[in-house]
């Protein structure tokens, strides 16, 4: 079942076309890689889908419903969650409180219920000592907290923007396992932006490749990585 779909999605920033005529779909239970060189428009694309940026033209559909111009907080409520590349854990809030936010506002739970479900999610992600200040967390713990916060929205579509960046290889393996597990258990549609190709290869079933805002290739990683256009995009035409 298709959870999310875009048609001809375009976003211009003054003269620059950050995302151009992009059509894609993301299915329930699928982990999709979104790759491309720096400045290809990956983050803008996630911003468009999650409602942080509004498109110049085109259409976004969630479970058959047109949500092109729906504000971000409403999208969070109907089931689209995401993490951010630059993470700002909320100061003055503990780990558990950070995670609770999604339950409180996206799901409208009481603080008590939200705490209970946040605790369950943290346990699932092996995140402990939940009353700590976020300033003292390790990078791995911050990443887990971000994922936990997104999951507290109880999403059906989840976008992870460079969630592995800054982790060592053991930690990366651990998070890959975690993402695969939560996606399978919840039948989530997951979109992953990642620079490390090893992660994309292991984690995703399908990949879309962006270059200068355009979709230039689509398919399983093994196939896409051999596509001459993709290789050229990454090597800047020097090869």
């Amino acid at each position, binding site marked *: 079942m298709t959870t999310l779909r875009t048609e001809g999605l375009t976003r211009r920033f003054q003269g620059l076309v950050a995302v151009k005529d992009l059509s894609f779909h993301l299915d329930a239970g699928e982990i999709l890689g979104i790759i491309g060189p720096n400045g290809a428009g990956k983050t803008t694309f996630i911003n468009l889908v*999650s*409602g*942080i940026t509004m498109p110049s033209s085109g259409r976004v559909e969630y479970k058959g419903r047109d949500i092109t111009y729906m*504000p*971000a*907080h409403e999208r*969070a*409520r109907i089931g689209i*969650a*995401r993490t*951010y590349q630059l993470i*700002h854990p*909320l*100061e*003055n*809030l503990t780990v558990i*409180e950070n995670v*609770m*936010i*999604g339950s*409180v*506002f*996206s*799901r409208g739970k009481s*603080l008590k219920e939200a705490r209970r479900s946040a605790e369950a999610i943290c346990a699932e992600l092996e995140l402990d000592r939940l009353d700590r200040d976020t300033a003292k967390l390790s990078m791995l713990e911050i990443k887990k907290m971000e994922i936990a*916060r*997104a999951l*507290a*929205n109880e999403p059906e579509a989840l976008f992870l923007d460079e969630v592995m960046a800054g982790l060592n290889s053991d930690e990366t393996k651990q998070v890959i396992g975690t993402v695969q597990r939560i996606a399978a258990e919840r039948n989530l549609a997951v979109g992953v932006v990642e620079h490390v190709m090893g992660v994309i290869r292991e984690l995703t079933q399908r990949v879309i490749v962006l270059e200068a805002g355009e979709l230039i290739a689509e398919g399983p990683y093994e196939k896409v990585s051999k596509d001459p256009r993709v290789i050229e995009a990454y090597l800047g035409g020097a090869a």
Partner: protein
Amino acid sequence: MNRNLLRILAALVAVAAVALPAFAGAYPLQVARNVILYMALAITWDMLLRSGQISFGIAGLFGLGAYASVLGVLRAGMSPLLSIAFAGAFAGLAALLIGFLILRLRAIYFSIVTLALAEIFRIVIQNLHDFTGGPEGLVLDGVILGGSASGLYWLTLAGLAVALGASWWFEKSKFHFALTAIRNNETAAKSSGIDIFRWLLATFVITSVIQGFLGGIYGQSYGFATPDSVFDANFTLLPLAMALLGGIHSTVGPIFGAVLLGLAAEWLKLQIPYGHLVVYGVIIIIVILFIPGGLYGLIKKANRASEGRKA
């Protein structure tokens, strides 16, 4: 210090505050009334600040409340107590309408507009001669509660209780989560389902209701309202300085700051008449430069450091 000890201490302070008229003369009571009024305003200013929005409009809503209450008595024949409630409602309604227009603004733009609004209120009221008495203002036939010193003190204390209650409720409810999230990162807040505009509007209206309500208490306590007295910039600047000195983003900080700065101001007024405001300014600058968390922030830091050593 453990939590129970703090609770007992807070209870003792509360009892002492209520019982103050039994053992204080007219002058200390008047000073206490001032401190309490500014404390309440400082708390309401901080409540909005918890969302990251810096308002310079306290005096505007306070003055609006004072006028609403005095006019309520003079023109609509309200009882003084009812007129104080009316003052809160009127300021809240004004904030609701204004909020729709200005709560899309952020940072310095929001601050400047709130400052301008306070000035606009003053000028409008000053020029509605027939209705508001113009620059001379309005005088009531009498002061609320017959002008009894302890009565007026308790009335102001009730105003503080409302501000404290609201602030405490903000700390314990979804407001705490919403406002902290908005202050930290609006984009991330949206992605967690927070309707930023709605929460800011609610906070702006609630804090304005209390500021108008306090203005009503002030107007009824002195029995008059003039543009220069109730829209005085001090109603914006002193609460702001108190909250900064005591420590922002908390209920306790503004309480500390108001007591310290309020008492210091009384003392300084006697030492250097008209010069005490300079000292105020210097204190604000020192706090912003060297102790941005305020005194309560320092205490929390020291507390955390000592806990760190224990662990």
